[in-house]
C-alpha cells in the first residue's frame, strides 16, 4: 500500500548525527526547509555518546547538545526520529523517500518526558547505550541528553504488565501503536548515515568478545563519560579499578584478514585521547598503546600525541596478534617485540580494542547511490567536491563518505549543505 501522507521539504537529511545536524543547520540557516530522518530514538549520533573529544578535550556533550537543540528548535528543521528509510529514489526533479515511523508505543504529543514510566517499569534490560555495563528499563528515554525526550517501549522485553500505562500522568502509553508510513518529497537529499564499529564478536584474534575485560573503544567512551555506567573507570568483570590498560590499534582496520583494508582514521587519536583521560582519572595506571603507525595528522593532533608521550603513556610499535584470557580477569596480549628480542606477552587489567569503522548504512535495495569497494558511498569528485555522489541532487557527508573525525565531518557537512543549496538555487533559476 502506498502511503498517502506526503510531506514536502527542500532537503531530506538522512541521519541525525553530527554530520546530519550540521548539514541541516547550514541549510536551515539559508532558509531551506529541512527534514532530518534518524533511525535511532534520539538525534546526536555517535558524537553524543562520546566522553570528550580530541584534540581540545572538551566534553562531547557540551559540543553536541547545542547543535542538537539548535536543530530541534530551528524553524526550518523538522526531526523525524526513530524512523526507517525504506526507499530513496529520484522522482521528477527531486527525490522521494518512503519512511516508516517505528512505534515507540508512546504518544509523542501527550508525553511530557517525565520518566515516571521508566521508574515504575519492573524489567531491567542491558543498556547498549552504556556499553551493556548497566541496565535501563523496558520503557525508557534512551539517554539523559536525548532529543526528543521521549521514551521507547522495548517490546522485546515488555511484560505488558500495564504499570507504565497506569502511572503515566498524560495517558501517553499506547501499547497498540503501529508503524506508520509516510513519504517525504524533497528537492535534494544529504546522506549522513555515519558508521558502526566493526563488531568484536567476529574477531577471532581478539577473542570474539568472549574474553573478560576486553572491550571496544565505544564501550570505553561510555566508561569515561561523566554520565557513564560506573561514573568512574572500573573494569567490567569485577569492578576493579584497573592498573594496567592497553589499547590495541588497527583492531579491524588496515587488516584484510579482518575484512577492513582501509584506515579508520580516528582510532589513533581517540586511543590517545582515552589514554590521556585515563591517566587523568587513574594517575598511577600504566597505559600502553600498541600501534602500527600513529596517524595524528589533523590540526593540533601531532602535538596532542607528543603530549601523551610526555605524560608517560607508552607507545609500542607492534600489531597485537592475539589476546588470551589471563588469570584473575586479566587479558594477555601477544605481540612481536620489534627490537629483535622476540615475542612478548603482556598482562593487562583492561584491554581496549580500537575497532575499525564500517558504514552505518547500506544503500542496497533502498537507494541507487553507488558504494565504493570500501562499502562507503562513492564520491564522484573527491577533489573538487567530495560530497557529490553519482545521483544528482543527492549529497553525502561525514563518515557515510568514508571514515573521518568530527572536525572533518563538520566541515564536510557544511560543504554538502553548500552543494545542496547550489543545486536548489541553480534548478530554481532554470525554472
Amino acid at each position, binding site marked *: 500500500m502506498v502511503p498517502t501522507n506526503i510531506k514536502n521539504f527542500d532537503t531530506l537529511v538522512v541521519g541525525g548525527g553530527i554530520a546530519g545536524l550540521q548539514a541541516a543547520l547550514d541549510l536551515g540557516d539559508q532558509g531551506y526547509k529541512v527534514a532530518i530522518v534518524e533511525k535511532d530514538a534520539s538525534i546526536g549520533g555517535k558524537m553524543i555518546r562520546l566522553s570528550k573529544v580530541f584534540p581540545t578535550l572538551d566534553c562531547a556533550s557540551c559540543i553536541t547538545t547545542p547543535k542538537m537543540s539548535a536543530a530541534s528548535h530551528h524553524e526550518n528543521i523538522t526531526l523525524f526520529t526513530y524512523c526507517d528509510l525504506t526507499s530513496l529514489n529520484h522522482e521528477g526533479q527531486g527525490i522521494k523517500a518512503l519512511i516508516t515511523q517505528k512505534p515507540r508505543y508512546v504518544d509523542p504529543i501527550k508525553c511530557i518526558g517525565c520518566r515516571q514510566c521508566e521508574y515504575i517499569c519492573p524489567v531491567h534490560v542491558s543498556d547498549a547505550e552504556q556499553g551493556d555495563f548497566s541496565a535501563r528499563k523496558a520503557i525508557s528515554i534512551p539517554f539523559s541528553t536525548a532529543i526528543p525526550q521521549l521514551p521507547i517501549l522495548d517490546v522485546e522485553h515488555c511484560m505488558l504488565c500495564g504499570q507504565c500505562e497506569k502511572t503515566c500522568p498524560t495517558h501517553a502509553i499506547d501499547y497498540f501503536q503501529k508503524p506508520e508510513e509516510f513519504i517525504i518529497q524533497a528537492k535534494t537529499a544529504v546522506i549522513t548515515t555515519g558508521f558502526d564499529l566493526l563488531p568484536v564478536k567476529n574477531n*577471532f584474534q581478539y*577473542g570474539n568478545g*568472549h574474553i573478560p575485560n576486553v572491550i571496544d573503544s565505544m564501550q570505553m567512551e561510555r566508561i569515561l563519560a561523566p554520565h557513564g555506567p560506573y561514573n568512574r573507570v572500573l573494569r567490567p568483570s569485577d569492578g576493579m579499578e584497573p592498573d594496567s590498560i592497553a589499547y590495541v590499534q588497527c583492531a579491524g582496520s588496515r587488516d584484510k584478514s579482518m575484512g577492513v583494508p582501509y584506515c579508520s582514521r580516528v582510532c589513533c587519536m581517540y586511543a590517545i585521547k582515552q589514554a590521556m583521560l585515563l591517566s587523568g582519572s587513574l594517575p598511577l595506571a600504566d597505559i600502553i598503546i600498541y600501534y602500527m603507525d600513529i596517524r595524528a595528522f589533523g590540526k593540533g593532533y601531532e602535538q596532542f600525541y607528543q603530549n601523551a608521550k610526555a605524560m608517560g603513556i607508552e607507545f609500542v610499535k607492534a600489531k597485537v596478534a592475539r589476546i*588470551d584470557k589471563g588469570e584473575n580477569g586479566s587479558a594477555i596480549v601477544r605481540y612481536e617485540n620489534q627490537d629483535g628480542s622476540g615475542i612478548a606477552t603482556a598482562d593487562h587489567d583492561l584491554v581496549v580494542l580500537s575497532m575499525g569503522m564500517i558504514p552505518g548504512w547500506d544503500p542496497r535495495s533502498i537507494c541507487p547511490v553507488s558504494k565504493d569497494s570500501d562499502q562507503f558511498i562513492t564520491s564522484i569528485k573527491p577533489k573538487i567536491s567530495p560530497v557529490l555522489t553519482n545521483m544528482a541532487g543527492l549529497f553525502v557527508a561525514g563518515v557515510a563518505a568514508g571514515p573521518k573525525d568530527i572536525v572533518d565531518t563538520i566541515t564536510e557537512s557544511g560543504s554538502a549543505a553548500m552543494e545542496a543549496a547550489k543545486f536548489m538555487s541553480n534548478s530554481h533559476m532554470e525554472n
Partner: protein
Amino acid sequence: MFNPKDIIETLANNVQQTASPFGIPKFMVNTWFKHASLPKKGEYLLFTGLMYQFTPYIEKSTQYLEKYEGTRMAGLLKYARHIPSYISGIGLAMITSGKEKKNAGQTLKNICSLLKKSKVDFAYRPDLDNYSGILLYDMGDQKGFVAHAKKVAQKLQKAGIKKIITVDPHTAYALKELFPKYTGINFEVKSYFELLNLKSKDCGLEVTIHDPCFFGRYLKLSDVPRKVLTNLGISASDIRNQGEFTSCCGGPAESISPSLSNEIMEKRAKELEEPGKPIIAYCPICLGNLKKSGANVEDLSTLLVRHI
C-alpha cells in the same frame, strides 16, 4: 634441533630410491588392504597416500631422534643417508611394533566401511596408491617433490583415474592444490568425510575436535566433519582455536626438532582437554602426536564406526 640439510637429504634420497620418505619399501608399509576385500573398480579411487600407514614409523623414528636431539649424535645424522639405520629404511621397519602398524591399518579399514555404509562407489588399487611427496614440498625440496609428484600423478592419469578419495589432510592438500599447480594434472579430489552419509539416533555425546591445519585452514573443510557428527547426534564443543584458526599439533616439527614439537603439542593438548570431552583428530600425524601427550584422542573414523 637437527641440521635441516641432513634431514632433507635423507628424505629426498629415500623418496628417490624407494618412493617413501622413510626408505621403507611400499610392500612392507602398505598391507592393510590384504584382508579387506575391496573392489578394484569404482567411481572413486581411494588414495591413502600412505600417510596413515607411515605413522607408526614416524613415531618410532621420532623416539630415536628425541634421544639424540641436542647431543653429539645429532651431528652424525648427516651420515644417515649413507647408512640406512635407526631412522630410515628397513631398520626402522624392524623396530616398529606390529601392533602400531595394525592400528594404522584398522583406521583405513574403518574408513572403507564408512564409505560403504554411505554407499560410495569406490575402488582401491594398491599399485596406484603412493606417497604424495608432500614432506619434500614442506621441506623445500621443490625439485624432488615435483619429480616425485609427476610420477605419482602420471601413473594415476594413465590408469584413467578422474575422481579420488583421500583420507588425510596432507595427501588431500597435495592432490587438491599442489598437483594441479606443479604437475599440471587435475583430479576431482574429495576427503572421505565429504562423501559420508550417515544417520543415527542422538547419542548425546560431546567431543572436542582438533582440526588439522590443512583441513581447517588451507582447505577450509572443518565444517564437514562437524555436520557428519551432528547427523549422528554427536556435538562438538566450541574451543577458541578451531576451524580456520586451529592450532598446529606440533607434528610437522617432529623430524627437525622433537623437543619443539613436544612443546607445541603439549600446549595444544591442554587447549583440547579444557572442555573435558574426548578428543577427535582426523589426521594421522595429529593423532599420533596428540596421543604422545597422553590425551584421550582417537581418529574421527574410529568414533564414526562405533556409532553407526
